[in-house]
């Protein structure tokens, strides 16, 4: 088996059947412009340099053709972040070389396939561009460290805008995320040399190709040695995880495809983890005077989703539809039920959440009241213990069965077998966590099709296509003798008359919904618990004011891990908080802000936002991508962090955000898009919690 980079030399001499590529860009007039493209096949590099985009891409494609070896007809090219970057530029330029088939999923360009239509020996051959980031979702720099590549990723002055520059080593402010010491050390190497933009860019770009090649080769070897699966068969990490599951762990005739109405119904029970602020800070007494803080403990569950997949039964077998109250004939009926749900009249931490329309937009809120909706049976039985009541109207029952035990067992043991720094440890973690979501994938996909529109015949075909797809078309774009159509597609779903079922992608939202629901059930033990006060909770973590008993702590799946003991804490909103730990470490998390902006924030900055109506602004560069136009533009955007509210009702005392209470759904839910103001006005003007507002 290949272990780390030491064995890489032997691999490097082999001809791997994939290529790695990278595009370097500069920003001109707020537009990101490619100027260099390199690719590597494990032995040779190709490169294309210059600002003329047509020439740049044409030379690159021509260079790629030299990688076709022998009778091989397919070339696979990996770019790290194809979907978010390289692919956006590539797509438009590829059209001139053949028939292009891009694949979009959730608005993301997952892969681009081109069947070459150029005269000569390469006619009819195929190039497939894939995104390695979708298989290894980490930055190349981090991956290089995890996979211990032979070379470390280089640094480059991305803010230098002159590609003809030749002179002294660029200034520190042209580099991003480089410390002064690192800068000085690199500068020292150029003490007696001139620094040439093109030479250095080539070196940097080729190095990225080499590093990505080494990482993918190692990754392929490690995955193959463990699971006898080649990574080129999949496009994403969840797909790899599913392939491993289906090859080695899935029992025959256990998991069935769920589509159509059944899937739509069950999907209504499918939501993620509960993230809520319960108590906004840990200061005791009057905020402006007191300097006393209550000690807090922050815990994470070890691999929460793998834990519930390992220990809890899953809905397997064929669904059975029912109408009526199933519990009258089976008090332990298992499945997904459509019910009239009534919460207790008051519960400090409601444990059932709903996705509802509010005047602020669509929100997932754990509130109180009566509503009708779909729920996973086990979440229902758990809620009954907390005083919820249910009237079951209809639903689907499933068999209860063990499904993921051997899969999680294998991957968890791999994590124990390999030390934390070993890539296999990381790979096992990624594969283990990526499986369940694949079951919950929607069966609708976005299709992008490119049609010729030059001749009358072409235009007639195009016209009939437009008629055929009609309202499913979401975008049409003219590109030089071609027309690109983006449409939502369910066409892979076909009805099998003989056997009376829909045949489509292998998805089963019941399993995905059961996994997330079981995780919420597990976390519900920390809510409404008289043994401690709950300040904040995320999908798999809690912050409380008392240590948990030792019996709950450990390294095993599902046990709790102490993350921090906290001296000072401010929780402004889900995923917006600041902590100072007992060791003096300052931790600031603000969802939506980039590392650069967060690094300038301190505990005290978030603390001042506890004051009613206070705000803070941040400027951050944002990219505006257009797949259809093939451009990426940048623009500075102002983010305002301010007091608004969307998950629980804020309680202000003397102008300080002191506490929260659950909402009653009838106060905040929009019915048929009409906002119904509450009958009783008490505190409703305080409805707005903290929210990040985007201002252009």
């Amino acid at each position, binding site marked *: 088996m290949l272990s780390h980079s030491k064995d890489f030399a032997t691999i490097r001499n*082999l*001809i*791997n*059947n994939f290529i790695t590529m990278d595009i370097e860009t500069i920003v001109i007039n707020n537009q990101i412009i490619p100027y260099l493209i390199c690719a590597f096949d494990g032995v040779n590099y190709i490169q294309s340099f210059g600002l003329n985009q047509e020439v740049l891409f044409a030379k690159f494609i021509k260079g790629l053709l030299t990688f076709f070896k022998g009778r091989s007809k397919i070339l696979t090219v990996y770019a790290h972040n194809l979907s978010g970057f390289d692919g956006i530029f590539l797509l438009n330029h590829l059209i001139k070389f053949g028939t292009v088939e891009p694949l979009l999923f959730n608005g993301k360009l997952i892969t681009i396939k081109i069947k070459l239509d150029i005269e000569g020996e390469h006619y009819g051959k195929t190039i497939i561009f894939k995104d390695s980031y979708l298989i290894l979702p980490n930055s190349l720099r981090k991956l290089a460290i995890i996979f211990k590549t032979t070379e470390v990723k280089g640094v480059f002055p991305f803010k230098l805008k002159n590609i003809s520059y030749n002179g002294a080593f660029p200034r520190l402010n042209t580099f991003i995320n480089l410390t002064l010491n690192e800068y000085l050390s690199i500068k020292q190497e150029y003490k007696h040399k001139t620094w040439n933009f093109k030479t250095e860019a080539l070196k940097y770009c080729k190095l990225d190709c080499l590093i990505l090649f080494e990482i993918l080769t190692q990754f*392929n*070897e490690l995955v*193959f040695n463990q699971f*006898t*699966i*080649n990574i*080129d*068969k999949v496009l994403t990490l969840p797909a790899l995880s599913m*392939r491993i599951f*289906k*090859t080695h762990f*899935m029992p*025959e*005739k*256990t*998991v*069935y*495809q*769920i*589509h159509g109405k*059944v899937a739509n119904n069950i999907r209504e029970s499918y939501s993620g983890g509960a993230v809520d602020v319960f108590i906004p800070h840990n200061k005791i007494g009057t905020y402006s005077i007191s300097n006393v803080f209550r000690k807090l403990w922050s815990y994470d569950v070890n691999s929460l989703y793998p834990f519930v997949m390992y220990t809890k039964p899953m809905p397997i077998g*064929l*669904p*059975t*539809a*029912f*109408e*009526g*109250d*199933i519990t*009258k*004939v089976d008090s332990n009926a298992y499945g997904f039920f459509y019910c009239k749900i009534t919460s207790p009249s008051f519960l400090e931490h409601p444990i059932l959440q709903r996705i509802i329309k509010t005047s602020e937009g669509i929100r997932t809120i754990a509130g109180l009241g009566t509503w009708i909706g779909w729920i996973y049976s086990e979440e229902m039985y758990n809620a009954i213990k907390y005083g919820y009541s249910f009237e079951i109207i209809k639903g*689907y*029952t499933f068999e209860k069965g063990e499904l993921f035990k051997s899969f999680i067992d294998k991957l968890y043991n791999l994590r124990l077998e390999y030390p934390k720094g070993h890539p296999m440890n990381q790979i096992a973690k990624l594969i283990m966590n990526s499986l369940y979501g694949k079951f919950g994938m929607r069966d609708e996909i976005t299709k992008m099709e490119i049609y010729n529109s030059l001749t009358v015949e072409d235009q007639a075909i195009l016209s009939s296509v437009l008629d055929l797809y009609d309202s499913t078309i979401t975008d049409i774009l003219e590109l030089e003798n071609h027309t690109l159509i983006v449409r939502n597609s369910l066409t892979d779903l076909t*009805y*099998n*008359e003989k*056997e*009376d*079922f*829909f*045949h489509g992608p*292998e998805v*089963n939202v019941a399993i995905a919904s059961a996994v997330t629901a079981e995780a919420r059930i597990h976390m519900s033990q920390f809510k409404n618990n008289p043994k401690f006060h709950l300040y904040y909770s995320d999908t798999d973590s809690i912050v409380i004011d008392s240590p948990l008993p030792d019996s709950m702590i450990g390294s095993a799946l599902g046990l709790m891990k102490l993350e921090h003991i906290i001296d000072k804490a401010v929780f402004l909103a889900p995923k917006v908080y600041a902590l100072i730990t007992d060791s003096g470490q300052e931790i600031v998390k603000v969802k939506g802000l980039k590392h650069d902006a967060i690094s300038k924030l301190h505990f005290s900055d978030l603390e001042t936002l506890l004051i009613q109506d206070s705000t803070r602004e941040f400027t951050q560069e944002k990219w505006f991508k257009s797949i259809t136009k093939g451009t990426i533009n940048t623009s500075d955007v102002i983010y305002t962090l301010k007091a608004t509210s969307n998950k629980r009702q804020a309680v202000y005392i003397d102008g300080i955000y002191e506490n929260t209470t659950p909402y009653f759904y009838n106060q905040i839910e929009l019915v048929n898009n009409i906002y119904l103001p509450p009958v009783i006005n008490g505190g409703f003007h305080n409805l707005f919690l903290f929210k990040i507002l985007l201002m252009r």
Partner: protein
Amino acid sequence: MGHLVKINYEDKKLFIEYLSERLTILSDSYVTHPISQMSFSYIIKTGKCLDENRTLLLQDYSDKNLTVHNFNNMNLPITMEPSKYGEIRISNTIDNGETIIRYMVVNGDKTYQIDVCNNGMVNKVTILGKINLSWIDTKINLDDSSFKREIGKSTLYFLDGEIFLQKLQLNAKSFKRFRHHKKPNK
């Protein structure tokens, strides 16, 4: 839809009625896809077919004076009492390790074969003839008249002649297993 049925030319109307009955039995109440085409294969013979071959077409499909369960336009009695199905013509006891009391009950043109098993807890009912429809009724509670009926892919639960729960097993395609790759791609 069925096997060869012998009819005379003048039986056209009866035959269409028979087909529509047959069709409703074959289709499932939860399936809503339309029938796109029907194929008939036939052969014309000289002479007339006898009445005994035509009995199928002459059935009276209406069961009167009974609380009924409408299964695809066919009325089935909601009861576990054989005597309420109609007139009991024969009853005998069969002992194959388990004691079964078999009733032959006639109501109109329907003949029911009701096998009462498990000390009256389970009835296996078959409508004899070409319709050949059968189901199983099982008592849920000894204290009341509740029972469940498993018919086709459906299960219905009755209490006092009313359906209080119905279930239908849905069909779906199972996930396919993948094969291992024999060698790494290099």
